[in-house]
């Protein structure tokens, strides 16, 4: 049986044989975002996981702050901070097995780092020395994708290919609320559902696409409600509840791994910082809203749980902070070194072998640099 034949079919037939293919009810999200922290279910969560999540959240926040500082020092071209969204970032990375793939969007540097990519290499794009700083195959992390939603069909294709080869690989693809409006979002989700590809789509709904609020982006009851239109389950989760996000994603990954097909997860969160260091958020939103969300801070929510259950004390928090400081110090130190660049790299990877035309251009640049060097002497 081919992958293609596995699907049941929505195959309209004339009455009385008519039957819709799937029962839509289980595909619809609950109207309330799923939460764990602050509920009774929290008590049943694995302490180890809580501590790991916590340490990563704190590291993540520190990383965001450090990277933003580096933009001010001219060490990064630009930085889109995910402060406030660390729970989504970290949970996305931790929900995957090593053999799985992560497809991040441009704001998801933290998820990339949480998956194991070197923190400096993760910033190469934003530093401006090359377009991607890490080998995607090393940690199975696709390049940070700048054109919004375009990475989603890649995730589908990769997961589909893995399945065809009989490999046990799930792809998790990240996109913003704004990105869901793009045609590529639609096409990717449709392909994933038709192919029953092992993909999990994580929408970080942080309320804004740069300055455009969600209300101008969609009129849907929730973004998770889009899932039923593709025939996949949609899940709505509190994106600031790291435990809840992790659980929902891990479930979706398991479901995909077991051959159950894709899931669309909407994590409701908030972008605390401006869009990037270059953005002026006061033009389009007020402080009250930001403050309301600060009161629902992902780190705070988790610390409350951990300290309440006696799993973490002042010392523990201090240790985690020190670890995060060490990360920041290392980042600072290494980012303050000028990268060594070879202009000839312009021609090195356009094709497997440069075309005759590129060879000519390479020779030209080479001669120019030679002349420059001679002139400088």
């Amino acid at each position: 049986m081919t992958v293609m034949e596995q699907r049941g079919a929505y195959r309209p037939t004339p009455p009385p044989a008519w039957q819709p293919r799937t029962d839509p009810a289980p595909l619809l999200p609950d109207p309330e975002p799923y939460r764990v922290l602050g509920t009774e279910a929290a008590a049943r969560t694995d302490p180890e996981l809580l501590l790991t999540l916590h340490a990563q959240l704190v590291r993540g926040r520190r990383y965001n702050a450090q990277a933003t500082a580096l933009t001010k020092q001219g060490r990064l071209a630009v930085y889109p901070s995910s402060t406030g969204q660390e729970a989504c970032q970290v949970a996305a990375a931790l929900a995957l097995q090593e053999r799985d793939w992560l497809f991040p969007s441009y704001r998801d540097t933290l998820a990339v780092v949480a998956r194991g990519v070197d923190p400096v290499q993760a910033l190469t794009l934003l530093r401006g020395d090359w377009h991607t700083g890490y080998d995607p195959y090393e940690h199975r992390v696709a390049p940070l994708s700048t054109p919004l939603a375009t990475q989603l069909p890649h995730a589908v294709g990769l997961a589909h290919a893995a399945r065809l080869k009989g490999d046990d690989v799930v792809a998790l693809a990240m996109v913003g609320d704004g990105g869901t409006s793009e045609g590529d979002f639609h096409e990717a989700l449709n392909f994933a559902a038709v192919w029953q590809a092992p993909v999990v789509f994580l929408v970080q709904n942080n309320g804004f696409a740069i300055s455009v609020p969600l209300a101008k982006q969609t009129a849907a009851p929730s973004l998770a409600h889009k899932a039923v239109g593709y025939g996949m389950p949609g899940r709505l989760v509190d994106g600031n509840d790291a435990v809840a996000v992790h659980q929902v994603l891990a479930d979706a990954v398991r479901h995909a791994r077991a051959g159950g097909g894709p899931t669309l997860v909407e994590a409701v969160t908030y972008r605390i910082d401006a869009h990037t260091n270059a953005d002026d958020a006061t033009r389009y939103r007020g402080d009250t809203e930001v403050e309301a969300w600060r009161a629902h801070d992902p780190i705070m929510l988790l610390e409350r749980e951990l300290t309440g259950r006696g799993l973490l004390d002042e010392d523990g928090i201090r240790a985690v902070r020190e670890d995060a400081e060490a990360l920041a110090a290392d980042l600072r130190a290494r980012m303050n070194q000028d990268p060594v660049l070879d202009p000839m790299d312009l021609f090195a990877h356009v094709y497997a072998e440069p075309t005759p035309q590129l060879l000519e251009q390479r020779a030209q640049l080479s001669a120019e640099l030679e002349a420059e060097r001679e002139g400088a002497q």
Partner: protein
Amino acid sequence: MTTVALKPATMAQALTRALRDAMAADPAVHVLGEDVGKLGGVFRVTDGLAKEFGEDRCTDTPLAEAGILGAAVGMAMYGLRPVVEMQFDAFAYPAFEQLVSHVSRMRNRTRGAIPLPITVRVPYGGGIGGVEHHSDSSEAYYMATPGLHVVTPATVADAYGLLRAAIASDDPVVFLEPKRLYWSKESWNPEEPPAVEPIGRAVVRRSGRSATLITYGPSVTVCLEAAEAARAEGWDLEVVDLRSLVPFDDETVCASVRRTGRAVVVHESGSFGGPGGEIAARVTERCFHHLEAPVLRVAGFDVPYPPPMLERHHLPGVDRILDAVGRLQWEAES
């Protein structure tokens, strides 16, 4: 005669002013795009328009470029004059099918019944330290698409004059805004903005006798610098700013080349399949016996636009232009 208080204005401000004046003059003019409302666009070109004209006239759309341009087609069919902002060059690609299959062809398809007076503003080009997908020069794609006008200003005054003309045009115009000139400044009289420029006329920015630099958009200032530097080498270069790639002003360009007998085309866009090939070919077709040397091209390399730290090696600069001028077979002279 009253004394006029000239004030400095940036190209971005000139564009804003053009939009504002166009909207004030004609209620059919509507601006739409991503972040054009409260934010005023990521380059602030639409700053203040939503406030002044309301969000129905200057509208933040969902994040979907094909949808934006497609909706603009429908709006134009109903008599509006949409001005669409694409946030960056590479983010206009999702709208490519709408542009090529509909915007450029609707008038022709309907024997003139449905003209589409749509202006598509596209910030383009590099030199601003932008990360991948933020520095493309995509004019070759638009030039190869019959039915579109392709216009690009190089001065603050032209930014105003050409954008007004683009909006007033009954045909679709791809209006390419050189990103790194957004902050370039000129002094003007705010009481009396520059004239509306007819689309399709090149202009000689600097007269010279030795050779012609044919250029447009962000490369115009570079060519003017090169022309200054060339004086030291004994070359007196003429600089032609095309301003409009479609229609193309063969007359002005060829008149210059016939005078000088030598030409170099300069642009940021890649060389292979880029605008320079067309320009060199048509100049050669028309001025063959006036040419002392082949028309040369100085362009970006045929590589994906490089990361910020390497872009200076990619962009055509003064030295590379002078090198090309030096290769115009001056031996023939002596």
